[in-house]
């Protein structure tokens, strides 16, 4: 299959998620081949894979490290 993006542009598709580890396990069990396991950065937690069309994708869980307790409230 051909790549869907214009050649010469090295774009990465970012897929936002609320829980990167869960998404990573789900996609992995569906046979997605990850090139980078979940890893931490300033923005949060992300994992990279190449899709069936050759596009580089990244699932990203953005984390707000500023608010100490806000996250607890979200899930309660």
């Amino acid at each position, binding site marked *: 299959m051909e790549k869907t993006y214009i050649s010469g542009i090295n774009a990465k598709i970012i897929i936002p998620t609320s829980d990167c580890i869960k998404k990573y396990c789900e996609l992995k069990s569906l046979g997605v081949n990850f090139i980078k396991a979940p890893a931490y950065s300033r923005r949060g937690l992300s994992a990279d894979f190449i899709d069936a069309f050759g596009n580089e994708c990244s699932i990203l869980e953005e984390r707000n490290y500023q608010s*100490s*307790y806000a996250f*607890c409230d979200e899930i309660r």
Partner: protein
Amino acid sequence: MRYVRELSNRNRISCDTVRNSTAEMQEDHHTFKFVFKGQQDYLMAKRKVSIFPDSFLFLPPGTNYTSIVDSYDPVDVFSVSVSANFLSDFHNSYYSSTDLLLAAPEASNQVPEIMESFYPFSGDMRFTVMHLYQRLIEGEADELLINEYLHHCLLNFYRIRGREINSRMERLGALKASTRQELFKRLILAKEFISNNYNKKFNLNDVARFSCLSVNHLLRTFKEAYGISPYQFLTQVRLDRAKYFLEHTDYQVAYTSMLVGFESVSSFIRVFKSTFNVTPLKYKNLSSIKKPC
């Protein structure tokens, strides 16, 4: 909600909501203890550690302890235990997959002895644990997923440990490594004392006596390791817990200030405002707007 789950690799997760309970236990796994709401006390051989939602406790295998909850409001406790095999597998992969293998090759073989201590429950560790908790509430049964969370818990823990212990210990001026280690153990005791008694009246002599250091030595080394004085640390703990009460309870500002150990409401408001750029009342109102329920 009470929930206990043991995985096939002997890792164990449990959560519970309790008001009054006393339990004597011996830990056979490496265990992390969290409190999402309220306070839980642990008594371990002459030592008492209180866990609040801003910190978590690590217990190595073989620790004897008594856990105590005595509260009018329900306390949410959460515990994660990992087996020795799981930890040593993680330890080896942690040091062999990164450049750290070059930096510390001797660390790759054996899991170092990790002393029981409390650590700040924030950042990625908080996110990972809260996600795991949420999955368990939803009835998640996939062991692979749960083990992935546990793997990340350990990853986050190693990073916290590296930051909180190894790098802080290196800052101490003592020449010998064993002296630094001993000094640091005493500083942890000092930190524990301040955190446990944050709402009581005590002075530096009490902290120094508890941590077996002289007052001058304590002041100097505490600042060396943590970058702040014991008194600044106490204020930080008080303000953090005041923030928690303002967000999660209906207590008045005056009552909150008394609860976290400030002698006067005005000094509480002044310190709170100078630290967070917002008055406690405004902060309380803001957090109640964010939380419609």
